[in-house]
């Protein structure tokens, strides 16, 4: 049983408030991801849970125990650091055994546990090596192994994959997923990479400037972002934001802006009528912009003409950087289609997946 509960946690260095009113319950066995831009306070929050930073105010519970003043070693947690923090003077075996040794676990038990963990992480051959003689991926696995042998009730990981190359990162990501399924332990994982967050997390906390923006499952964050920040942060490439005006009356509502004219779904129309302001921000994901020519769409559905400026062919998809009116937008098209710079592309928006945000406080007006 290890639920982690943060109650109104705050962290300040002098007058500089880094984490504001962080209120969150992480369920037992949950894989929780903290994601946000650099400097938003992810690491600081994780380190407060680990006990490496003092909590300025608020309460931290692990299980049912108040942990604010409990020393890190008694919190029953293990942490994987970004740069692995392996002891350079110890072999892989000693690195993994160290935490158990310090807790006076009998030698034969240590040996068994280390060998088990090593086998599951394909480290058996490397047990006698020093960290210096390992590749980046191997070091990463040793760092995981060191945490695993401790059998903590909570795993903390601070950007554990950010020092690996793209391919290895993909492999390790699935390995971490598998590890979580096997161990069934609460995990808190910090990253600034939204792909990692989406693929790993049971739930994701999106942070900005030390404030929780939204806590939800990956799909809910993607489909129903609570504000412009979350909408822009989750999903790759990022959502397009276009200033728009609500035009028309009940039954015949649409959004109009520089170079486009967007029909909306029936549901959205109902809600738009109730929005006080006329000026809003329309959010369209690149995946929800289609080529009217390919869709054989009705003329009435065309939202505007995109002028292709850059074509990025990724294989399965092609990213079109276009000008729509005076604005830059990105659209993701199927890979088979050929586009040329300067080409005019008639565009259709997927009306079921449009988002509308307040220009005033950037809130999602459709929630």
């Amino acid at each position, binding site marked *: 049983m290890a639920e982690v509960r943060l109650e109104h946690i705050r962290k300040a260095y002098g007058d500089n408030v880094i984490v504001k009113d962080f209120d969150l319950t992480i369920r037992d066995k949950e894989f929780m991801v903290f994601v946000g831009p650099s400097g938003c306070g992810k690491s600081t929050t994780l380190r407060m849970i680990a006990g490496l930073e003092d909590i300025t105010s608020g309460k931290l519970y692990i299980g049912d125990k108040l942990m604010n003043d409990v020393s890190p*070693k008694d919190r029953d947690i293990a942490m994987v650091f970004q740069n692995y923090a392996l002891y350079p003077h110890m072999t892989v075996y000693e690195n993994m055994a160290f935490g158990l040794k310090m807790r006076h676990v009998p030698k034969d038990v240590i040996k068994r546990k280390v060998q088990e963990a090593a086998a599951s992480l394909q480290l058996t051959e490397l047990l006698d090596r020093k960290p210096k003689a390992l590749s980046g991926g191997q070091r990463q696995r040793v760092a995981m192994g060191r945490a695993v042998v401790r059998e903590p009730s909570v795993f903390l990981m601070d950007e554990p994959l950010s020092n690996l190359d793209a391919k290895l990162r993909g492999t390790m990501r699935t390995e971490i997923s598998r590890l979580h399924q096997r161990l069934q332990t609460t995990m808190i994982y910090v990253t600034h990479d939204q792909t990692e967050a989406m693929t790993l997390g049971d739930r994701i906390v999106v942070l900005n400037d030390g404030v929780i923006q939204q806590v939800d499952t990956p799909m809910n964050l993607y489909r129903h972002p609570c504000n412009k920040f979350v909408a822009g942060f989750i999903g790759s490439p990022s959502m397009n934001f276009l200033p728009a005006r609500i035009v028309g009356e009940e039954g015949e509502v649409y959004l109009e802006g520089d170079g486009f004219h967007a029909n909306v779904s029936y549901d959205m129309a109902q809600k738009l009528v109730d929005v006080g302001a006329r000026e809003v921000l329309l959010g369209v994901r690149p995946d929800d912009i289609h080529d009217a020519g390919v869709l054989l769409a009705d003329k009435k559905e065309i939202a505007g003409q995109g002028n292709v400026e850059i074509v990025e062919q990724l294989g399965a998809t092609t990213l079109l950087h276009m000008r729509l009116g005076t604005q830059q937008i990105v659209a993701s098209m199927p890979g088979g289609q050929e586009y040329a710079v300067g080409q005019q592309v008639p565009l259709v928006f997927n009306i079921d997946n449009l988002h509308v945000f307040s220009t005033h406080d950037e809130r999602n007006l459709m929630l």
Partner: protein
Amino acid sequence: MERKHWLIHIVLILGAVTMLVPFYWMLVTSLKTLVESTQVPPTLWPQTFVWTNYSDVWNSLPFAAFYVNTFGMIFFRIIGSVFFSATAAYAFARLEFPGRDMLFGLVLVTMMIPGQLFLIPQYEIVARLGQVDTLFALVMPGLVSAFGTFLLRQFFLGIPKELEEAAILDGCNRWQIFWKVMLPLARSGLVALGIFTALFAWKDLMWPLIVNTSLDEMPLASGLASLQGQYSTNFPQLMAGSVIAIWPMVVLFIIFQKQFIQGVAGTGSKS
């Protein structure tokens, strides 16, 4: 390319010869007769080998005591300076306490004051402790080293903080972090400090001369100096005494050559 190679070699050979000539001269002179040793022009090889120079000088002075005193002094100074410098350096590098930076500044200042200024207060301390003419007197000024504190602090600063945090999560307390993680990682710094301490203790003449005046309590350096007084003109015996005095250091150097060179050349760069 080839020519440059030769030039470097010539410069190095010249340097080596310059360093070796005094040693050669010491060895050769120690085997000459008194007359030959002052002959002009000097001879490069002894006409007759006077091995008795060695037995004479050995019998005239308590060399066994000199050795014991020297090695005792070096041993305890190394233990003391490495231990105290490392603990102080760790505190200055990693602990947060009021006045830390000012205190460290004071430590640095002591490095800039000529050592001779400390002779009188140090003598006072030893005298009041009633420890004049003892091994303790020889060891005392070398127990702590400002230089060592500075050197090891640099080493500790170079060790990533995450290692310490990992150790905290692994269950170490402060002392265990220091002992099991920081010290092993600063090993090359400790070795360098040990070597510097040994060298300095070996060469230290002024302090032993002042504090230990009875022959049986002297280290080699001041013991030999007394030889100079007794045999001011007997160069062969003086040189024989010098050979007896330096050979242990030469042997030690040959044994620890690798660490020695690493310690002096690689300070600070290994971590």
